[in-house]
């Protein structure tokens, strides 16, 4: 705080604090508190609110415990989000390494631009583009049929496949950037030293690059996991009758069933369990909060 004050003076420091405070209090904390409050109340019509029936209850939380289908979807969402995170990591690590160590400055800038351009388009539109690409009568199927590789179109959008492809694509940057930042700070001499001493490429990555990039990998994984578990647009557009994401159930409680209280309880449970999952993973990987903030 004093460092901030010394650096920017009273005016700018005040502005920075006011804006941050506004964001944290009005856009994060108060809506969350309101949601938690909703989640502990029964679903009443507007006229009954504040009346004798408007009491605190755990009934909305009991619903999830009682509903086997929702429990299964909840677990599937956690599992599938982890799968998305792992796939994104596998796709992004080579890109990030190449960007950070394998290119000249100009090439890196060009590659970064190519990675960024698709993200100038709205996420919904990008996801919708995937829907068109993968659709039964879409360009991919048409091309494969025209080339004679398949006889009948394939239903790519069945099961969770479409959702996972869409998410990996949507969250690439959130994984590439932190890993790139971490690997870039690695002294190239270390890699060359390892090579001179006869280490295989695998061993160099395992013993030198990955340990150095661990905080970046952790940040990327946490962001991707949170985004995947909380994504609504991708499963709504790329999902199939066989895939149901937990966020879709939350949406359905709010917008189809009109039961905001139940929806709030589900949303709060998702938030809590995601946080729990992340702290669990951090502990397993022996990464502290301080490593991530680096």
């Amino acid at each position, binding site marked *: 705080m004093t460092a901030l004050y010394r650096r920017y003076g009273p005016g700018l420091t005040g502005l920075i604090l006011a804006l941050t405070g506004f964001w944290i209090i009005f856009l994060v904390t108060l809506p969350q508190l309101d949601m938690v409050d909703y989640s502990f109340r029964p679903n009443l*019509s507007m*006229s009954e609110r504040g009346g004798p029936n408007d009491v605190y209850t755990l009934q909305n939380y009991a619903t999830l415990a009682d509903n086997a289908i929702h429990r299964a979807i909840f677990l599937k969402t956690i599992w599938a989000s982890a799968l998305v995170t792992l796939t994104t990591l596998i796709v992004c690590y080579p890109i990030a390494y190449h960007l950070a160590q394998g290119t000249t400055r100009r090439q890196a800038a060009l590659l970064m631009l190519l990675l960024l351009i698709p993200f100038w388009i709205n996420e919904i539109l990008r996801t919708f583009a995937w829907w068109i690409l993968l659709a039964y009568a879409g360009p991919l199927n048409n091309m494969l049929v025209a080339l004679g590789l398949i006889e009948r179109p394939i239903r790519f959008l069945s099961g969770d496949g479409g959702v996972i492809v869409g998410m990996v694509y949507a969250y690439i940057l959130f994984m590439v950037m932190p890993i790139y930042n971490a690997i870039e700070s690695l002294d190239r001499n270390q890699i060359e030293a390892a090579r001179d001493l006869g280490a295989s490429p695998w061993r160099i990555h395992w013993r030198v690059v990955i340990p150095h990039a661990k905080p970046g990998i952790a940040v990327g994984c946490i962001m991707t996991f949170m985004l995947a578990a909380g994504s609504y647009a991708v499963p709504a557009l790329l999902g199939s009758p066989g895939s149901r994401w937990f966020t879709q159930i939350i949406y359905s409680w709010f917008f189809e*069933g009109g039961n905001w209280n139940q929806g709030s309880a589900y949303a709060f449970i998702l938030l809590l369990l995601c946080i729990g999952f992340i702290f669990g993973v951090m502990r397993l990987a022996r990464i502290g909060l301080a490593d991530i903030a680096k």
Partner: protein
Amino acid sequence: MRKTNAVLAATPAVTRRAVLKTGAALSLAVAAPAIVSRQALSSSGEVRVYAWAGYFSDTMLADFQKKTGIKPVRVEFGSNEEQINQIRANQGKGFDLAMPTIDRVPSYVKDGLVRPLDESKVKWDAVIDGNLRGADQGGGMVDGKRYVAPTDWGTEALTFDVKQAPLQYGTASYGDLWKPEYQGMVTLRGHSGLVGIGLYLQDAGKLPHSMKEAFADPDKMVANYDIILKTAIENKKSIAQFWTNENEAQGAFRTNGCVIGQTWDSTGARLKAEGMPIGYIAPKEGALAWIEGFAMLSGAENIAQAYEFINWYYTPEVGAMYANETKINTTVKGAEKHLEAFNRDFFAAAYPGDALGKLWSWPIQNEWFITKRNEYQEKFLAA
């Protein structure tokens, strides 16, 4: 496309908790300049309409502005659920007119989201008598007060590919969706798909109660819906895609390889109008019929302008413009003279013989029904 909750996010937080009231007051203070300038605009003549996606085109709104000098503001939604929950979030404010389906209007009234119409200010003579009566009886009139000025009516029935899944009136049935040859090529909406299955089972004598009774009595609903859900889940492998709005329903046929589905009339009509080999027909169990119309929100600010909008709509030219554009049926008298031949032909092909007499009007859907219905839909979707 599904709307993001821009309005919801832009509205200052309104909460029931005292602890949050300060927050609301503060954020209101921050938003004050925006609110003041909006009022300044409204005094110069503005009407804010919350409408179904695709119902009021730019051309139509320009026509309204030219004739009345009032600036129309249009915000769109894709389903009744989206509509009522958005209006609930705004507590009846933010728009002057909304467009609920009449069977949902009693819920709006119960929550105090709409206000009765001033009967003397609407040109009721311009409305087809049967439609007005239908709207009043179907939920548009509550405790003797009229809440809805009906704009249009339409149905949900069978849309089919004329080559790959040809259907004939008289034999066409909701049960056709589940024929083995269409497996993996069917689209429908979760909750209304269950009603379609219900009507099919009712005709086959497999339900303990009639479907109308299921909408009125929770026990009868559960008895019926348990059987319906079982049939639905057994046949789920037939479904290629669930739709929730017009755009998704069209997409199912356009690019997702569906050849048969239970959709709105507008879906079948708009695809056919583009030259696709698509037909739309009422099944023998009866097409699901709805009426919708303008309702005035309790927090409406531009009341005189809103009545101008309703009365502008109640002219044959505008009614026809609306029907030609949306491909659904207007309630305005004399509009048929201005209808395109396509609309007339489509209507005749969709409801041949006794189909109009067999229409199955949506019963009033109370909140307990919506909640319960959603539970069944959820089980169907997740199975």
